[in-house]
């Protein structure tokens, strides 16, 4: 038997249904006629012969069905019939259809959104070829293996690295902040240079035009003077105009001795190609002509080589690199090669909260399914007459179950369709609210795997919520049901299962509400945090100059002073400060050790150390608590004077005044000098005298305790880079162009990197964004869960009320008051609401500890949980009130007449 022949036969019978039926009937008719002719030939009258033939053979009209059964299409025909019947049923009850499909769409949509988010940011992030084999080298201190860092190599080191036998190929990337010179002025841009092997290494097709190609060359090759744009830059700067190809870009790196370069745009990369952290445009390495370039290396491991093997192999090589330039490597370290995604997963606290997000989505899905089950049960009970009739004329339980399940699948697949549409918008929300929490390659997209996930989920959900009602209705009590005059019969059993479902919904909703409440409370606490400084109208400007350019301490100090004076002279600038660290500070909590002279040696005494000038405290409006701040003159000379914060006093000198005491900063000074800092002539040793105490200001990251801090004058240890803090009159963003211009005039070699207002920095803070994101996500989940649960509750009460209308009519006719009827309806539901809430409370308390682990920084107060429970009870009762009051308003005369 050939499967192909069978399929062809089925195909013909399905696509040409009426023709095959006609042919089968015609063939059979011929058979009947031929038989009758034979009978006539044997002496029977023609009419009698026809009759005999029909009696013997049967009716030609049923032959079509026999044919379809014989070739095995019966199940198909029946399912198709169920499907059409199901769709007709939904169209007949548009209200029921809308509510079920929407509740399912909501829960499937959320689940699909969660999946496509994880798909976009974790599972399938990188558009680059073999990204699972591509590794980044990082170095870490063996004592703190989780505290690792990327490192850069020089051109010569890159060549050495590239030659390792562990690698199939190595791609080099160098980043440059540049000034774009356009007709309407200058703007900042981020440029990335790639080695000539970029195209074969990454294998990403350009969106338009061409990408970088091997012939564009490496360092030392003739420069083709071209650029390939990043997608975001193309959209922002050129409004996605395809005619951009052939346009010129002029950029200046600001590196001394480097002239501005003009290049031709030859292509645009697709949205997901963001190698080098979302740069604006790419150039070939051949266009980077200056000798000192810092290269980040991406290596593709040979097939069969594990990252561990390769790490061991390159470790000694990297230690040789470190011997050449100690500044960028820790004192003792190991090398590790890690997959690209590790850079994200290791550092992302969002990834840590994924389990609880999945839990929330699963709960939401259960609530949505329970809702559908409730609605199906309610609707099914009104259809018992139909089921009994079907069973009476021969439908088997299996046949009834199949019909009901097909109806459920229609609902769930329609729900999944809507859900996918919804998920497309929902999944993009996290990337919009907190794009810096995810790899820049993350782009939410609806593709085959997302669709497959959603359809599978919908099928599973359809079976999950449909099977129970289907099993219940598959064995109707035929005689009882058919004998009843009324087609609406309430069964006690049905009510019990409805109540159970409602109870579960309420319990799960409460769990979601409490988690969401904690997340929102955490975020609110973060926004109301006492910063200890005033960020309003303060701008920070980041930049620096090449250390090689300014060789002596005096030169650096003079240069810094010139920049400060120039910016301070700008009209509208209230005060200017120069500082090494900016609030709210980094969350890194490993600080160098120090000693307080006269105290017993304390190995664990560590503190932040910030280099600031005398104006720092007035610019940020951090009040002085005791003593004084060094004068401008003292600061200028770089005298060894320090100011500490109150956290320092609390921790290290709680009982004795710190003023006038000496702090020894041996290790800090050593480290700074090895990193290229120049010491002031007045600061010979490592001893520094404390002359003042300031109030605490957030310095260890938002939402974290204030760390002990030692502020010393910026001129004691001068580095090449310096950030400026400016307090302005009014919105600082209006001054940006002036600042840049002024700095350019004042110090030709100053490389201006970026400027942000301190408010902007706060709103870009990772903790802030993450908490806002989790608060929004859980807020949405909880709102959806609440809406679903209330809709479910409302439908159940409305349905039960509709069933008992007759009873209420009789009660009212016999003298029951309307408030009595209202109480009658409410009473039976209050029990469900309260027991659901109780179970929810217990569950909430159980998950509380776990959720605290997953959602860092969320407060977990019992009061919050109790408030959520109380409000859930109140809104649930309100949801019952409307159908209950309808019951109370029953007109007994109408109801009894209708009977």
């Amino acid at each position, binding site marked *: *038997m*050939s499967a*192909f*022949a*069978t399929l*062809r*036969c089925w195909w013909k019978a399905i696509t040409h249904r009426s023709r095959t039926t006609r*042919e089968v009937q*015609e*063939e*059979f008719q*011929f*058979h009947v*006629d*031929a*038989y009758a*002719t034979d009978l006539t030939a044997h002496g029977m009258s023609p009419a009698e012969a026809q009759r005999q033939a029909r009696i*013997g*053979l*049967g009716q030609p009209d049923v*032959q079509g069905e*026999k*044919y379809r*059964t*014989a*070739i*095995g299409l019966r199940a198909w025909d029946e399912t198709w019939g169920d499907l059409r019947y199901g769709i007709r049923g939904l169209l007949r009850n548009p209200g029921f259809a809308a509510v079920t499909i929407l509740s399912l769409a909501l829960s499937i949509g959320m689940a699909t959104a969660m999946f496509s988010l994880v798909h976009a940011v974790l599972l399938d992030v990188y558009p680059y070829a073999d990204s699972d084999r591509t590794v980044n080298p990082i170095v870490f201190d063996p004592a703190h293996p989780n505290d690792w860092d990327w490192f850069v190599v020089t051109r010569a080191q890159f060549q050495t690295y590239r030659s390792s036998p562990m690698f199939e190929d190595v791609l080099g990337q160098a980043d440059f902040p540049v000034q774009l010179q356009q007709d309407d002025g200058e703007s900042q841009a981020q440029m990335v240079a790639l080695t000539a092997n970029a195209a074969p290494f990454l294998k990403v097709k350009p969106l338009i035009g061409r990408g970088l190609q091997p012939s564009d060359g490496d360092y030392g090759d003739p420069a083709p003077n071209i650029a390939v744009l990043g997608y975001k830059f193309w959209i922002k700067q050129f409004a996605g105009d395809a005619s951009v190809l052939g346009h010129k870009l002029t950029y200046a790196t600001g590196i001394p001795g480097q002239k501005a370069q003009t290049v031709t745009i030859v292509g645009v990369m697709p949205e997901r190609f963001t190698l080098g952290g979302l740069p604006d445009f790419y150039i070939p390495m051949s266009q980077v002509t200056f000798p000192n370039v810092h290269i980040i290396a991406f290596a593709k491991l040979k097939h069969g080589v594990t990252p561990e093997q390769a790490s061991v192999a390159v470790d000694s090589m990297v230690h040789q690199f470190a011997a050449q330039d100690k500044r960028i490597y820790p004192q003792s370290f190991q090398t590790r090669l890690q997959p690209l995604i590790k850079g994200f997963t290791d550092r992302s606290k969002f990834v840590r909260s994924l389990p609880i997000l999945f839990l929330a989505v699963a709960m939401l899905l259960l609530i949505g399914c329970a809702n559908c089950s409730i609605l199906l049960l309610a609707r099914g009970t009104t259809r018992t007459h139909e089921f009994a009739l079907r069973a009476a004329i021969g439908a088997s339980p299996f046949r009834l179950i199949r019909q009901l399940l097909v109806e459920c699948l229609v609902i769930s697949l329609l729900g999944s369709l809507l859900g996918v549409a919804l998920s497309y918008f929902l999944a993009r929300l996290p990337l919009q609210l907190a794009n810096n929490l995810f790899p820049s390659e993350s782009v939410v997209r609806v593709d085959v795997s997302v669709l497959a996930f959603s359809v599978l989920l919908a099928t599973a959900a359809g079976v999950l919520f449909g099977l129970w009602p289907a099993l219940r209705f598959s064995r109707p009590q035929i005689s009882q049901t058919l004998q009843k005059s009324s087609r609406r019969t309430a069964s006690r059993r049905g009510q019990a299962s409805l109540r159970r479902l409602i109870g579960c919904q309420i319990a799960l909703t409460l769990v979601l509400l409490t988690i969401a409440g904690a997340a929102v409370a955490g975020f609110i606490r973060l926004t109301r945090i006492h910063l200890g400084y005033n960020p309003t109208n303060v701008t920070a400007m980041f930049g620096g100059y090449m250390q090689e350019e300014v060789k002596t301490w005096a030169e650096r100090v003079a240069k810094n002073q010139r920049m400060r004076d120039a910016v301070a002279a700008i009209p509208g600038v209230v005060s200017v400060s120069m500082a090494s660290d900016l609030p709210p500070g980094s969350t890194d909590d490993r600080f160098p050790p120090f000693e307080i002279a006269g105290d017993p040696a304390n190995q664990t005494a560590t503190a932040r150390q910030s280099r600031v000038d005398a104006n720092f405290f007035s610019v940020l409006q951090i009040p002085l608590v005791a003593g004084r701040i060094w004068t401008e003159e003292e600061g200028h000379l770089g005298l060894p004077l320090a100011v500490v914060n109150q956290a320092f006093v609390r921790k290290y000198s709680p009982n004795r005044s710190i003023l006038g005491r000496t702090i020894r900063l041996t290790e800090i000074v050593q480290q700074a000098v090895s990193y290229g800092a120049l010491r002031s002539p007045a600061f010979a040793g490592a001893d520094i005298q404390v002359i003042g105490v300031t109030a605490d200001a957030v310095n260890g990251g938002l939402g974290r305790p204030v760390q002990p801090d030692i502020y010393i004058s910026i001129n004691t240890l001068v580095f090449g880079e310096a950030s400026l803090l400016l307090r302005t009159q009014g919105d600082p963003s209006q001054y940006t162009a002036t600042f840049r211009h002024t700095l350019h005039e004042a110090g030709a070699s100053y490389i201006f990197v970026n400027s942000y207002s301190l408010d902007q920095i706060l709103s870009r803070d990772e903790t802030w964004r993450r908490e806002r994101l989790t608060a929004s996500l859980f807020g949405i989940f909880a709102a959806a869960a609440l809406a679903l649960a209330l809709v479910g509750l409302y439908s159940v009460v409305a349905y039960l009320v509709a069933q008992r209308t007759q009873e209420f009519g009789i009660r009212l006719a016999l003298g029951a008051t309307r408030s009595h009827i209202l109480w009658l309806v409410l009473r039976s539901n209050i029990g469900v609401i309260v027991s659901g809430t109780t179970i929810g409370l217990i569950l909430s308390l159980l998950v509380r500890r776990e959720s605290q682990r997953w959602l860092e920084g969320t407060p977990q107060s019992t009061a919050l949980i109790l408030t959520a429970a109380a409000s859930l009870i109140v809104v649930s009762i309100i949801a019952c009130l409307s159908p209950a009051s309808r019951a109370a308003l029953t007109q007994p005369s109408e109801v009894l007449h209708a009977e």
Partner: protein
Amino acid sequence: MGRLELPQGALEMLILKAISLGSLHGYGILLRIQQISGERLEILQGSFYTAIYRLERNGWIEGEWGESENNRRAKYYRLTAAGKRQLKEEAAKWSDMADIIASILQTRAEEI
């Protein structure tokens, strides 16, 4: 002696055999089987067409519309290559089976 009913699966084989002698329409197949069997077989009308439809679905026979003796449109069936193979196999199996059953039935007590 009454007419014999066909065991399971035998009808299909007989239909294949009947067609192998030349293409026939449904009624013709029925007549030929009865004619060859000397009217000794009872073929149930209900199962006859079911068997034909199944054979056609399996790709063993192929129907084609033609004209009958009395100038009416009729569907004529002929054997396909797969059908010929199938007939050969079935016939071999059937005669093996008949031999075995016959030899079992002829066994006498002293032969064991």
